[in-house]
């Protein structure tokens, strides 16, 4: 199935815009810097590239336009005729032809100027030639602006054409203007075609889709046609004629029996006879519209005869009214059935072979019988009753029984949307109908009750209550085995521990919040000896032990630093531990040591230095502003600091993808003699 997508055609810029697009593209996509001292080959190449680039861009754009627009010979005859009617085939072809010649001209021009550029002997001459070339190309484009404008209009119109598929099941509505074609269309499909009480409301083809027998049907509403020779027909009527002539479809010929459309039945019947050749080989249906105004039976005998003569030809005449909906469904069904029958017939008749072809495609699968039980379809009693009722009424011919009123109807009766509000609660399905109008609060006791809704809640509550009862009956148990149980006397110790813990916790949190920077590793952190001592004492280490430990570490340190021989004799492990300790001891000690033994202290200092420096850094935050007089100066100082830091910070952000010159002065390029051509390789 060929589906024409005329929406895909790309925009055709008007001549002036076209030039702008092309030239700015050239400017963007080709190099822009050239100097007269460049090698002449380079200059020539620079300009040749510009000319060639412009030429190819124009060529591409033009080709795109030429490709996008459909060739009238290649598309379905319906479409090619429609395009002819709407846009005039000659004009269309001429416009495309002109673009084609323009494209060839530009190509030739580009070629010529590139050839001329080969002999350009100065930048000025090359530049002038380029300028001339581009200018002439632009002139050619401007010369075609009328074609471009026309094509753009065609494109816009094409993209809004209805999507008619010439090969599917199609029903075409035709007849005089104002007979009710569009009204019928609106009834059977969801297309919203304009309906007005004056002729030629519909000025072009409209398509809608409807379902019948699980198949999709395409309904085409056409503009009304008048009864005059083909040459006199205008564009609007010609569209209908095109559709009638080229689409294999079922034709509904609508006749307004009430003659409210302004045309007599005689005229309408004449029209039918005149355009009969268009209907040959197609199923036709004569449809009498507006029968709510005048029924067929009420017509005069001669009018009846006229209509009957047509009906005899097409074997079918039906009435419908778009206002009372009478006959609308019937007409649709009849039309669809007729078309379906016709299509099947055509398929069968095409070639004898194809029948088998079709039949072999159909396979009716039948399940094998398992047993002899009857498994009839089950239809509920209520449905059967209802069906019977409907059947009875249909036989009686009485107007259909009062249907169940829909909510929408009720709403309309009571003043429409906004005035009447339907009672939703009426239809609630609850265990107890009395509950329907109970007010359920959304928030109860400050809580959203929706959070607590649980269909199982009753059951769970029951279980919980049972469990509680069981517990109450049981004697009191000792929970010491599985939980921490605290004796009376340990109570205050426990309290102390807990409070201390919480203090630690809070301190930690405060710290974390305050120091929003990288955490120093523990070993680099500055150590406050007094704080350690205090903390240890708090934890319950008594002073004596503390002193003892301290003195021991001191002596050990001294032993390392003073008596080398002895320290060597001790195990390596003890030595290293002593170093660790030494590091954790406060700064003052280093000073002491240095005074005591400057040579030996040095060895410790090497490791100590780091801890010192970190300490300085942490202190500096407070020290920074100490020398400044007032707040103003401080602010200025801070600002200056930030400014100085910025460049450093920027440098720190250098990423992997950034340009990097690993070695800015490679030795091999900056040493040795430079002779000719030895700039980058020596």
């Amino acid at each position: 199935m060929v589906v024409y997508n005329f929406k895909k055609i790309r925009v055709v810029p008007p001549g002036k815009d076209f030039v702008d697009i092309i030239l700015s593209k050239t400017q963007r996509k080709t190099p822009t810097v050239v100097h007269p001292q460049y090698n002449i080959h380079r200059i020539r190449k620079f300009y040749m590239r510009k000319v060639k680039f412009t030429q190819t861009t124009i060529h591409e754009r033009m080709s795109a336009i030429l490709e996008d627009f459909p060739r009238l010979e290649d598309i379905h005859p319906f479409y090619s005729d429609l395009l002819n009617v709407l846009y005039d085939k000659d004009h269309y072809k001429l416009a495309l032809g002109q673009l084609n010649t323009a494209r060839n001209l530009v190509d030739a021009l580009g070629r010529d100027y590139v050839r001329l550029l080969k002999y350009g002997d100065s930048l000025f001459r090359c530049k002038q030639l380029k300028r001339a070339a581009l200018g002439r190309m632009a002139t050619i484009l401007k010369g075609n602006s009328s074609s471009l404008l026309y094509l753009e209009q065609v494109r816009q119109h094409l993209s809004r054409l209805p999507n008619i598929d010439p090969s599917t099941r199609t029903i075409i509505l035709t007849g005089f203007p104002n007979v009710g074609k569009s009204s019928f269309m609106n009834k059977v499909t969801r297309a919203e075609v304009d309906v007005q009480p004056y002729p030629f409301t519909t000025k072009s083809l409209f398509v809608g889709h409807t379902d019948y027998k699980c198949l999709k049907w395409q309904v085409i509403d056409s503009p009304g046609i008048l009864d005059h020779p083909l040459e006199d027909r205008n564009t609007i009527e010609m569209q209908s004629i095109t559709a009638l002539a080229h689409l294999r479809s079922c034709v509904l010929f609508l006749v307004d029996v009430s003659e409210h459309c302004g045309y007599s039945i005689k005229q309408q019947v004449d029209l039918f006879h005149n355009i009969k050749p268009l209907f040959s080989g197609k199923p036709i249906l004569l449809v009498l519209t507006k029968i709510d105004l005048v029924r067929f039976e009420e017509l005069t005998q001669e009018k009846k005869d006229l209509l009957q003569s047509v009906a005899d030809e097409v074997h079918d005449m039906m009435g419908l009214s778009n206002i009372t909906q009478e006959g609308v469904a019937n007409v649709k069904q009849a039309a669809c059935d007729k078309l379906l029958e016709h299509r099947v017939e055509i398929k069968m008749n095409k070639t004898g072979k194809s029948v088998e072809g079709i039949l072999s495609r159909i396979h009716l699968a039948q399940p094998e019988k398992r047993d002899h039980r009857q498994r009839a379809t089950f239809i509920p009693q209520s449905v059967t009753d209802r069906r019977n009722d409907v059947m009875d009424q249909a036989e009686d011919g009485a107007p259909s029984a009062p249907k169940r009123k829909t909510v929408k109807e009720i709403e309309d009766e009571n003043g429409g949307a906004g005035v009447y509000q339907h009672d939703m609660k009426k239809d609630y399905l609850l265990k107890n109908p009395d509950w329907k109008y109970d007010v359920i609060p959304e928030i109860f006791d400050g809580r959203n009750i929706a959070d607590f809704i649980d269909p199982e809640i009753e059951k769970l509550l029951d279980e919980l209550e049972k469990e509680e009862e069981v517990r109450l009956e049981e004697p009191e148990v000792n929970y010491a085995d599985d939980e921490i149980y605290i004796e009376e006397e340990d109570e205050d110790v426990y309290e102390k521990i807990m409070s201390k813990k919480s203090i630690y916790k809070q301190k930690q949190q405060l710290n974390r919040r305050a120091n929003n920077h990288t955490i120093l590793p523990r070993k680099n952190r500055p150590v406050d000896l007094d704080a350690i001592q205090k903390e240890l004492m708090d934890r319950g280490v008594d002073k004596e032990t503390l002193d003892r430990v301290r003195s021991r570490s001191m002596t050990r340190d001294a032993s390392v630093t003073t008596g080398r021989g002895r320290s060597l004799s001790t195990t390596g492990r003890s030595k290293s531990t002593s170093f660790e300790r030494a590091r954790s001891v406060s700064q003052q000690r280093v000073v002491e040591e240095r005074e005591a033994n400057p040579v030996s202290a040095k060895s410790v200092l090497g490791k100590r230095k780091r801890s010192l420096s970190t300490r300085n850094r942490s202190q500096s935050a407070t020290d920074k502003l100490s020398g400044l007089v007032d707040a103003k100066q401080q602010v200025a100082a801070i600002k200056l600091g930030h400014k100085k830091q910025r460049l450093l910070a920027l440098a720190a952000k250098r990423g992997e993808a950034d340009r990097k010159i690993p070695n800015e002065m490679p030795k091999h390029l900056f040493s040795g003699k430079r002779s000719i051509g030895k700039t980058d390789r020596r």
Partner: protein
Amino acid sequence: MPQNEHIEQHQRRHGHKPDHWEVQRKKEARVHKNRSKMAQKLFGLKAKLYNKKRYTEKVQMKKTMKMHEQKNTEEKNDDAIPGGAVPVYLLDREGMSRAKILSNTIKQKRKEKAGKWAVPVPKVKALTEDQMFTIVRSGKRKKKVWKRMINKVSFVGENFTRKPPKYERFIRPMALRFKKAHVTHPELKATFQLPIIGVKKNPQSHMYTTLGVITKGSVIEVNVSDLGLVTPTGKVVWGKYAQVTNNPELDGCINAVLLV
């Protein structure tokens, strides 16, 4: 699926947004602001183009305005000058216009006289040899320098055969050979593309004339048989002289004015 004039249809059915016209009006009123904002921001080529466009627009606008104004002002009508006896104080009114006509005719005559011997491009800039030629080195070691390639556009007759390339002293490259010229008829004010018959005179030098080099100011002979010009004796003119008015080597085409 919207089809056909769906936008218009929608507008017909539902109208516009309540403030549509107000918004439209304001937008229109703000146009000049947006325009000036853009004009201030643009620079370089874009600015040049934009300014040129605006300039032409403004000129056009002024012209139309003037035209409207003229419609309203009363124009002096020559026919309205009363005939017959005219009072003295009105006598010299027509004399003025007659004097004007007289002076105009004299000027016209002078111009015509001067035009008889003048050509459209009376003076040309002298070209040096190295602008005219490039030296082509030849010989096995490329040490012979007697060959020249002509740098300018040239006309080469149809039945010209090259000398054997080895001995060819002046090379006229194929790319720079032209066969047609765009010739303007100064009185018809129309331009035609005509085939060149030959180079009559190159003002630079006699040698260039014989070589068929066409530069600005050269006089060429063109085939005007298509124009259907007729001599006073009734013969159809075939060839006519025209002077080149542009630099063909810079423009890639030959523009000439017919000498009549």
